[in-house]
């Protein structure tokens, strides 16, 4: 059913649109799924992405003609060289390498997909981190003949670190092992153990041949009658898009809109939770309290907004709010302070230097920070080794962040938006690191706390805690307190962990 490059009509005067007998793609009831593909040329990554684009008809005939002309031929299945379709830059075509993150788009009748396509060899840590930062799912490729490699572990580790919680293992070139089920079972079991060790529980393994188009878009029942699982596209259609609607309300203020004296609105994208008129909110870092009066959008005044919505918020009183501030729910606030711990990926040849003052941008907030490396991740083994000197390009490090003014974060594992940041070198103005906040440094267990003074951890019923927090004494020293909501069971566990440390 695919149109081979040679039989495709050459663009001509009568560029009549030729209908395929395919159902129309209607309205979509899901957000686009963002995903990343991890693997090398040897694993058949270009072929897999090319196959996805080809079989979902994302490649148009004139592009195929250009492709056929550039490649000067085609492979033995009558298909063009997919790698040429993907390598968009002249340098890549000339040198036969892939040099940066590219984004690909395809859609089925049920969903649209945005693929971050990153090179498998050169500087893959930097490029993978970039592509993975927005992805909800990672496809990891393995060659059926070789199984999992050290490279697979590296890719899976980076994907998990960047917050991806859904993995698809594509066991590719399965035709070359004669569709042997035992081989598939072995590789997928190894992978399951690897993924679980990284905290990833949503795992799908699929035997396929990207070159032949088996189990990518179309099923391969004849070749693999024993395989009952989804095709790759079916697995992607069923994947979930992470939502941060469950947590507290977060609105990083991008700009203040004042079209007239009587109107003052705070514009931004909701980065967590939800909001409705009447809600009590706190403006950080000032701590000023106000209530939500209105949610204004172009179309109508809305009665609620949720994470992801770009809105204009109007408060019930005159308060001082500027770009970089964050409007948050009063009963589930983020961490504020000057000292945080984070993980980061070093992206530039200059590395990340200990003690250097960088610009840090998170949400709409940009401020000065100095960075002290603590340890570095050894990707081959997945272990953290002490490391206090410069973090070289592609290194993944744990660091301490020291701010000159109050900073506002959520832990990245709770909110991928308010927990993420980039570092900008003040000399080159280039983006030199991507980072994920793990905790505030005065938190339980950090060594500094014991130098600074005694802390008391209380576990209280939520209603009692709320009364204490509502007191003036508490409100005045809010900065010094850490609050976590949790179940009684979690609290019990925390206390038993703390006891074992002592």
């Amino acid at each position, binding site marked *: 059913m695919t149109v081979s490059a040679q039989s495709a009509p050459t663009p001509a*005067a009568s560029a009549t649109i030729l209908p395929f007998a395919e159902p129309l793609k209607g309205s979509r009831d899901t957000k686009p799924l963002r995903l990343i593909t991890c693997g090398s040329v040897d694993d058949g990554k270009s072929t897999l992405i090319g196959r996805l684009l080809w079989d979902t008809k994302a490649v148009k*005939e004139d592009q195929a003609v250009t492709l056929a002309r550039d490649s000067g031929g085609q492979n033995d299945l009558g298909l063009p060289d997919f790698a040429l379709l993907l390598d968009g*830059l002249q340098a890549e075509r000339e040198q036969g390498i892939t040099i940066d993150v590219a984004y690909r788009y395809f859609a089925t009748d049920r969903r649209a997909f945005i693929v971050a396509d990153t090179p498998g060899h050169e500087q893959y840590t930097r490029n993978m981190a970039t592509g993975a930062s927005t992805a909800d799912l990672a496809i990891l490729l393995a060659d059926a003949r070789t199984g999992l490699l050290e490279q697979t572990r590296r890719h899976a580790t980076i994907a998990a670190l960047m917050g991806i919680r859904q993995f698809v293992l594509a066991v590719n070139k399965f035709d070359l092992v004669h569709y042997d089920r035992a081989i598939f079972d072995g590789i997928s079991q190894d992978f399951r153990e690897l993924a679980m060790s990284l905290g990833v529980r949503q795992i799908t393994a699929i035997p396929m041949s990207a070159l032949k188009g088996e189990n990518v878009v179309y099923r391969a029942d004849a070749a693999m009658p024993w395989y009952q699982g989804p095709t790759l596209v079916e697995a992607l259609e069923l994947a979930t898009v992470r939502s941060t609607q469950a947590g507290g309300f977060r609105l990083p203020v991008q700009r203040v809109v004042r079209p007239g004296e009587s109107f003052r609105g705070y514009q931004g994208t909701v980065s967590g939770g939800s909001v409705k008129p009447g809600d009590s909110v706190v403006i950080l870092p000032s701590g000023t309290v106000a209530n939500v009066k209105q949610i*204004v959008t172009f179309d109508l005044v809305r009665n609620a907004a949720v994470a992801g919505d770009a809105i204009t918020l109007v408060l019930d009183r005159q308060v001082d709010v500027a770009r970089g501030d964050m409007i948050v729910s009063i009963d589930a606030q983020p961490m504020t302070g000057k000292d945080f711990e984070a993980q980061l990926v070093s992206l530039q040849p200059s590395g990340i230097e200990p003690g250097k003052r960088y610009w840090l941008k998170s949400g*709409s907030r940009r401020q000065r920070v100095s960075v002290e490396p603590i340890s570095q991740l050894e990707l081959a083994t997945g272990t953290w080794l002490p490391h206090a000197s410069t973090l070289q390009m592609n290194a993944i490090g744990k660091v301490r962040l020291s701010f000159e003014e109050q900073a506002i974060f959520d832990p990245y594992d709770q909110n991928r938006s308010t927990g*993420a940041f980039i570092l900008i070198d003040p000399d080159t103005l280039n983006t030199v690191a991507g980072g994920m906040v793990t905790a505030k440094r005065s938190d339980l267990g950090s060594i500094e706390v014991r130098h600074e003074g005694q802390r008391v951890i209380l576990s209280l019923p939520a209603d009692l805690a709320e009364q204490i927090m509502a007191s003036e004494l508490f409100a005045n020293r809010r900065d010094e307190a850490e609050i976590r909501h949790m179940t009684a069971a979690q609290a019990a566990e925390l206390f038993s962990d703390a006891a074992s440390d002592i």
Partner: protein
Amino acid sequence: MPLSVQETEVKNPPVSRPPLDPHLKALENEAIHIFREVAAEFEKPVMLYSVGKDSSVLLHLARKAFHPGRVPFPLLHVDTTWKFKEMIEFRDEIAQKYDLDLVVHTNPRGKAENITPFTHASAFYTDIMKTEALRQALDAGGYDAAFGGARRDEEASRAKERIYSFRTPDHRWDPRNQRPELWNIYNGMIRQGESVRAFPLSNWTEVDIWRYIQAEDIPLVPLYYAAERPYVERDGMMILAEDPRLELKPGEEVQRGMIRFRTLGCFPLTGAIRSTASNLDEVIAELEIATVSERQGRAIDRDQSGSMEKKKREGYF
């Protein structure tokens, strides 16, 4: 013109359109976020407005992003003087209707040296009348950020371009040395003279553009809809034959037929397609079964593979 909320509500009563589906809503939210971020971080932004369907969507999103305020930057149209007549009429009408600041620039070399798409090769003509003209206009305005409606699905070199695409003081793009772009955190720090091209529609596809136009009821230049129009066939393209400057070559004759355009540029360089899709629903139905890409009708993309990358490096949008 300052507006109070009350006035705004009267002027724009809640419309009874059904809410956007989650897919389009996500794309719209992302675009609005980018608009607001650029407007907040740069001193003098401008929006490239080409009058086409992508520009129409871009403008609609800008109006949404800054509501109830006014769009806080001008629109820039690089007019080669060879655009379709209907595009120019539509442009002026929209600018007036939405109270927009419109800047129109034409490269004076066009007239001085008589550079036309008929007398010069399309690559040279495009370089002077579009790329050079754009650089002139950006320099003259001192703009440090320029919004464009480019999409990553349009062309292979665009697939690798960032949402904030950094330019040197002479407007050059270095595809091998782009700033990494993680999450939705954009690095807007630049030096004097440097600038950024910002692409809020990066993640949209052609189908998304059309479905959004439908869902939001966005007005378009009528050339996108099929009608019986005069045309001549030349170099494998159907060229609209209504501008008196189009001279017929030996053997050519003006024909009439139901045609429409999938993209709009300079009329001598933009090929029509045969179509009976005379309204939005029909255009979308046609598009969803299309087997050729929209840029197929653009002569400038076909010069050579990598021609778009080359133009972009030199400052083309």
